[in-house]
């Protein structure tokens, strides 16, 4: 056999040539691999590969080969991998299709193993990559947190370094002025010193407030209030306080509020004041012989009002490249700004944050030597028109002696003077312990107590007072400079809050709201709430039993009082007694218990009629209280009871 013959035989044994028409009918086949020539019907049915190309055959360009490597075919129970060539060709004067199959099963089966290994390891490395990505993200997060901590630390360091200097300057001034005031021969200048002292203290207060605000903003603790305010009054107040400084520097300070703005708005007026103080203060600070102008315009926005503020001055202006910087804490436009004009470099940074925290926007335009224009927008709700009432105090007749507990001497003095001026007797103590001592020995009609005091603070003292049987009715106002966390507790204890620094107007209003106390015990459902685990339905039932049964039992007791037989009276007392405890009439309960025990031990009771009368009065007052809306139990109004209670 020649090499050529050997080669042909080898290639022949692995190849098959088939010629078929467009319908798949076999025209010729060498049948080396598959017996196609003897098949009846179309070969497409047996070879889905060819079937799927059925539509394509007539479109193939003549004599062009299309190679399909590695096609998995099975026919007659044999499965294998074939490289296939399809060709549109002429056969017996007609156009037909040629399919060349080459058997590479052995080769491809070997390849499958390699491919499997390759894909397995590629998928594995994909998952490794994902894990690495997660680790790297975690690392980034840690770096970010670390940077943030560093930033906060740096902020604090700069903050304290800057601020201690800023605080020391006015403090030294105050110390010096106080010293000067102490000289007896300086009498003529006292007024001047006092004025300077007042100005310096106000400046110090402003700085301290700024510092507190900034630290609140930094720690995310700043809260915004929703109060009704008059925009005209607010703007007037702010502008009024700059009148003198404007006059001194020959500045025309004016403002205009657009007519369409409702005068009464709702939002945080204090923060708005603070913003305007800062911006107008700055404008005046950097202007000499010129103009500072505030204008406010607005647009209605779904029931709210978007206010557009503009503060414009004709001052020294800021260079363009420094505009961004001035909103950063401790930054001022020029390094010598602080020396020339003073200030902490905190004002604008606070203003920006106050505006942005209220979802507003601030923009600045400025031209060196021409002036600066700051615009900002804030949204407010529509406010109510609350008539301002003049600070005219009407002395409460039932209010005679007031106890003030405050450890700060200045605040002590202010509250004391105010109350004395209104005609009350005032005792002052400096600690909660002294409060408890004092109320035991003297009778007070009102307690005004500071929150922060040494030894026993305001809240602790109030807790003891409210839990005591004797003083739980004493009206209490709590003075506090901070936000109080347990506001609910204070409501439960019926304690009013007075903001510090004390606004006389607030105190006036609170005293004005005080109602004359009754002589009778106050009902208290705490005991019921505890034993029923605050089950409103059971509480309501027990209260209704008290209201319906106790008056009847009191009448029965009155009848029994006249009988010589003491046993029925004792039983009546025994039966009715627990009802008093349920509604917190502990004094009445104690009295009944003592009475019962006296009868039991056959001891004489002298004033039985008076005891019964007092208890009856207490019950009447209690029923009136229980019927009032305050208890919110949804009790049905029982006319008979109410009538009985009113008699």
């Amino acid at each position, binding site marked *: 056999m020649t090499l050529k013959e050997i080669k042909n035989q080898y290639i022949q044994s692995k190849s098959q040539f088939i010629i078929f028409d467009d319908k798949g009918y076999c025209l010729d086949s060498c049948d080396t691999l598959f017996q196609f020539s003897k098949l009846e019907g179309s070969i497409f049915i047996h070879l889905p590969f060819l079937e799927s*190309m059925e539509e394509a055959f007539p479109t193939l360009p003549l004599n062009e080969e299309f190679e399909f490597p*590695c096609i998995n075919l099975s026919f007659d129970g044999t499965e294998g991998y074939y490289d296939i060539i399809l060709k549109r060709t002429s056969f017996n004067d007609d156009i037909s299709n040629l399919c060349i199959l080459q058997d590479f099963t052995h080769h491809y089966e070997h390849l499958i193993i390699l491919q499997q290994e390759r894909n*397995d390891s*590629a998928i594995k490395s994909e998952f490794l*990559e994902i894990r690495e990505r997660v680790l790297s993200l975690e690392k980034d997060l840690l770096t970010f947190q670390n940077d943030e901590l560093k930033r906060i630390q740096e902020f604090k360091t700069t903050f304290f370094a800057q601020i201690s200097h800023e605080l020391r300057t006015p403090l030294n001034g105050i110390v010096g002025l106080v010293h000067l005031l102490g000289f007896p021969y300086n009498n003529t200048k006292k007024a001047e010193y006092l004025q300077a002292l007042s100005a310096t203290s106000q400046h110090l207060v402003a700085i301290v407030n700024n510092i507190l605000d900034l630290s609140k903003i930094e720690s995310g603790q700043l809260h915004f209030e929703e109060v009704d305010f008059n925009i005209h009054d607010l703007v007037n107040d702010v502008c009024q306080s700059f009148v003198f400084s404007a006059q001194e520097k020959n500045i025309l300070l004016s403002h205009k509020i657009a007519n369409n703005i409702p005068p009464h708005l709702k939002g945080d007026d204090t923060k708005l004041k603070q913003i305007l103080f800062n911006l107008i203060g700055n404008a005046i600070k950097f202007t000499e012989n010129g103009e500072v102008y505030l204008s406010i315009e607005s647009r209605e926005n779904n029931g709210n009002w978007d206010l557009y503020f503009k503060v414009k001055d004709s001052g020294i202006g800021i260079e363009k490249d420094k505009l961004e910087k001035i909103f950063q804490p401790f930054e001022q436009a020029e390094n010598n700004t602080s020396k020339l004009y003073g200030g902490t470099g905190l004002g604008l940074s606070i203003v920006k944050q106050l505006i942005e925290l209220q979802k507003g926007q601030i923009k600045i335009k400025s031209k060196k030597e021409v002036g600066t224009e700051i615009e900002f927008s804030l949204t407010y709700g529509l406010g109510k028109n609350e008539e301002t009432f003049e600070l005219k105090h009407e002395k409460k007749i039932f209010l005679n002696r007031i106890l003030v507990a405050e450890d700060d001497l200045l605040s002590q003095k202010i509250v004391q003077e105010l109350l004395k001026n209104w005609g009350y007797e005032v005792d002052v103590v400096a600690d909660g312990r002294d409060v408890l001592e004092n109320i035991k020995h003297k009778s007070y009609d009102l307690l005004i107590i500071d929150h922060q005091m040494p030894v026993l603070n305001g809240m602790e003292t109030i807790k003891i007072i409210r839990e005591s049987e004797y003083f739980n009715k004493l009206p209490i106002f709590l003075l506090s400079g901070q936000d109080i966390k347990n506001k609910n507790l204070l409501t439960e204890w019926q304690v009013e809050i007075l903001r510090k620094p004390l606004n006389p107007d607030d105190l006036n209003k609170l005293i004005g709201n005080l109602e004359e106390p009754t002589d009778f015990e106050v009902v208290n459902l705490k005991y019921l709430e505890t034993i029923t685990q605050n089950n409103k339905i059971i509480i309501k039932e027990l209260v209704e039993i008290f209201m319906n049964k106790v008056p009847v039992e009191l009448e029965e007791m009155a009848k029994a009082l006249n009988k010589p037989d003491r046993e029925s009276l004792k039983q009546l007392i025994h039966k009715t007694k627990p009802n008093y405890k349920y509604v917190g009439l502990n004094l009445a309960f104690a009295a009944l218990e003592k009475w019962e025990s006296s009868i039991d031990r056959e001891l004489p009771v002298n004033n039985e009629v008076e005891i019964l009368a007092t208890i009856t009065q207490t019950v009447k007052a209690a029923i009136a209280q229980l019927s009032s809306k305050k208890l919110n139990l949804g009790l049905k109004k029982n006319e008979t009871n109410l009538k009985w209670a009113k008699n």
Partner: protein
Amino acid sequence: MISKKVVLIGKYGVGKTSLIQQFVHQRFSEKYLTTIGVKIDKKTVNINGTELNMLIWDIAGESTNTKIPKSYHLGAHGAIYVFDLSRPFTYENIVTELNNLKKLISNVPIQVVGNKLDLLDEKNASQIINSLPLEVSFLTSAKTGNNVEPLFQSMAKALLK
């Protein structure tokens, strides 16, 4: 009877073979067996009374479909592009892959399928789809059979249009 060629394309290991196995034979194997070249499966479906032979080309997955012989796409009437919801690598450059595919087979229905839905919770799955810059036609699980039949049914309907 009408015969239509549908090609299944997508990266390796996304579950193309499993989807076809589930559709044609209702079976699933946990074991990953790679495909090489092409294996063609056939299933006859009935769409509103019309019998249709679906000739489904299970094309071996590569890292990119530019590695697939162009001839495989010849005469295709529809394509299903499959990715694995649990492997970002399989859908990271899905837009480029689909554009390449559209160059080879134009004017035929193409469906984009996220497979292995059983490995993810609903929230994660919807996050992934929302992050993709194209519309995903079906989320399937070849393992549970979820949405497999609807996927091929919808393809069959599109082929008859």
